[in-house]
């Protein structure tokens, strides 16, 4: 399986997810919504497995490859949220986001090669990246909701139930962020002999994590100040962007051991 076939698998997957999103709005569509979303996920996952086999390594090294996982985890995040809290619109939303990332990969595929430096050849590699991508999907969803609320509800008060949705997404996202970070630390210890070295990528990962912790604790302190809390979500998401790909461009991060091509 190569990048050339991506469109033939991605489009049917997106169609399944759209069908799932549609049924989520129907009164009796709960099971169908789940079925279609899962079908799309299985199809999409088959492409990832195909890439994995043809590259003979986990497809997680280049930005394009991490976007692949991101497009995969967004509908999963949506599905979990849907099943757990029954928000009708969440599947449309995760489908749209995932579609955007699929389009980026279609328009700007990046060169893929098999080479994987020895430090990355580790059983920690896959869980580390997968957990992080799942966290990014959750936190990306919370950022879009925060943005929407800040823009559209400028004059009216923001109701508590939508704030608890943000809390839920951030809690789940932060849980996974923590796990991804700790896996990274354990792995670094195996590969380099130290779990944390304040390398630029690690520094921004710490900043991102602190940002979300700040949100969590701010919410405990000031239940009522919704706008500042939402601002914190956006700010933390900005930190996350710097950590994910911003460090590749940051002058202070040249020479980071975690910047690959």
């Amino acid at each position, binding site marked *: 399986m190569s990048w050339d076939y991506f469109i033939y698998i991605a489009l049917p997957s997106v169609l399944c997810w759209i069908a799932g999103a549609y049924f989520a709005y129907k009164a009796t569509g709960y099971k169908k919504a789940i079925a279609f979303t899962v079908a799309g996920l299985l199809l999409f996952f088959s492409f990832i497995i195909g890439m994995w086999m043809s590259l003979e390594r986990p497809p997680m090294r280049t930005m394009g490859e991490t976007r692949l996982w991101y497009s995969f985890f967004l509908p999963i995040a949506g599905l979990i949220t849907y099943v757990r*809290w*029954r*928000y009708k619109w969440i599947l449309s939303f995760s489908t749209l986001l995932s579609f955007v990332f699929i389009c980026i990969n279609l328009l700007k595929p*990046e*060169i893929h*090669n*098999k*080479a*994987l*430096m*020895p*430090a990355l*050849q*580790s059983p920690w590699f896959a869980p580390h990246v997968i957990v992080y991508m799942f966290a990014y999907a959750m936190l990306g969803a919370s950022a879009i909701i925060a943005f929407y609320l800040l823009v559209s509800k400028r004059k009216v008060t923001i*109701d*508590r*139930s939508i704030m*608890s*949705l943000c*809390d*839920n997404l951030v*809690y*789940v996202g*932060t*849980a*996974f962020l*923590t*796990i991804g970070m*700790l896996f990274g*630390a*354990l792995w670094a*210890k*195996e*590969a*380099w*002999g*130290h*779990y*944390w070295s*304040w390398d*630029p990528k690690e*520094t*921004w990962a*710490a*900043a991102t994590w*602190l*940002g979300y*912790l*700040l949100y969590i*604790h*701010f919410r*405990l*302190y000031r239940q009522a100040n919704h706008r500042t809390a939402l601002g914190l979500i956006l700010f933390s998401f900005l*930190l996350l962007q*710097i950590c994910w790909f911003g460090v590749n461009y*940051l*002058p*202070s*991060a040249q020479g980071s051991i975690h910047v690959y091509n």
Partner: protein
Amino acid sequence: MVKQLWGYAAVAARWLSGRVAAITALSSLLFFVILLGFGLIGISSWLFVLSFIYFQIVLGLVIFRRLKHFRWKRDTGFMLNHVGLFIALLAAMLGNGDLQRLHMTVTTDFPEWRVTDEKGEMVELPLAIELKSFTIDEYPPKLFLVDNTTGEVLPEKQPQNLLVEDCPLTSRLLDWEIEVTDYLPSAAAMITKDTVLFKAFHSEGATSAVYVKAHNMTDDTRREGWVSCGNFMFQYVALRLDDRVSLIMPDREPKRFASDIIVYAKDKDTREYMLEVNKPMSVAGWKIYQLSYDERMGKWSRTSVFELVRDPWLPTVYLGILMMLAGAVYLFVSAPVKKD
């Protein structure tokens, strides 16, 4: 007087263990971590150290206050997260002081027991390592087009390459159809008066070479010849395709490097081990890591560099990390408020 001071301390501790203090601790640490991320301060900057200490004190007091009326069901998740972080940070900090990190360079056939510490000074260890052999497995060679004048790989910013996995092989790079007709993974260059030829050569110092026939699809010109990445014995050889571009083979990327070693430790059995990146070895309280090798000799290096780390606080750090992992699972399951 004493009573009054005690009173102040109690007020301070009360505030420091509260939510406002937690927010100040988190935001000030975040602020300095961001400065760190932009390279504006270093980790030994006193501002950073101070905010870190403040963070740790607040975290400790927050935990302490909860402990006073601890209730299992209510507080387990809280304790896993907060105590776990506290332990991990404290142990990592203390561990930094007690951590020993040494480098040992070993050449085949000569057991080595001397190492250099961070300052480059020699230290003797109760441990000797013999390097039986050092091997590098490499990825297949790659071919790139480069600009003759700038030396940049093409196309700019998005260089394309051709991976010579099997031979014969035909593929395209920009306007050129590239046919690889011969691939010698171990080769030696034979330099005649006006050409360079490659022959199979299976001994120390061998390099890799491919024979390429290139055909320009736009103006129908053809070129052929050997391309090689060279090494410490042989010069690299590029194939000039036209005035603008040449075909080159960069050094082959290592897939795996491994040292077959024998470790002699005092009062311990002698052990043989295949040391690789991501596969360190533990012996007598030390962890031995594959660090590097003689890069000039590349594949034919007869020396290997190991890193020896002694970290007595490691189990404590792991305890903290495990607690935090459990805490994260807890955070996930207990994601707070239901839909109103």
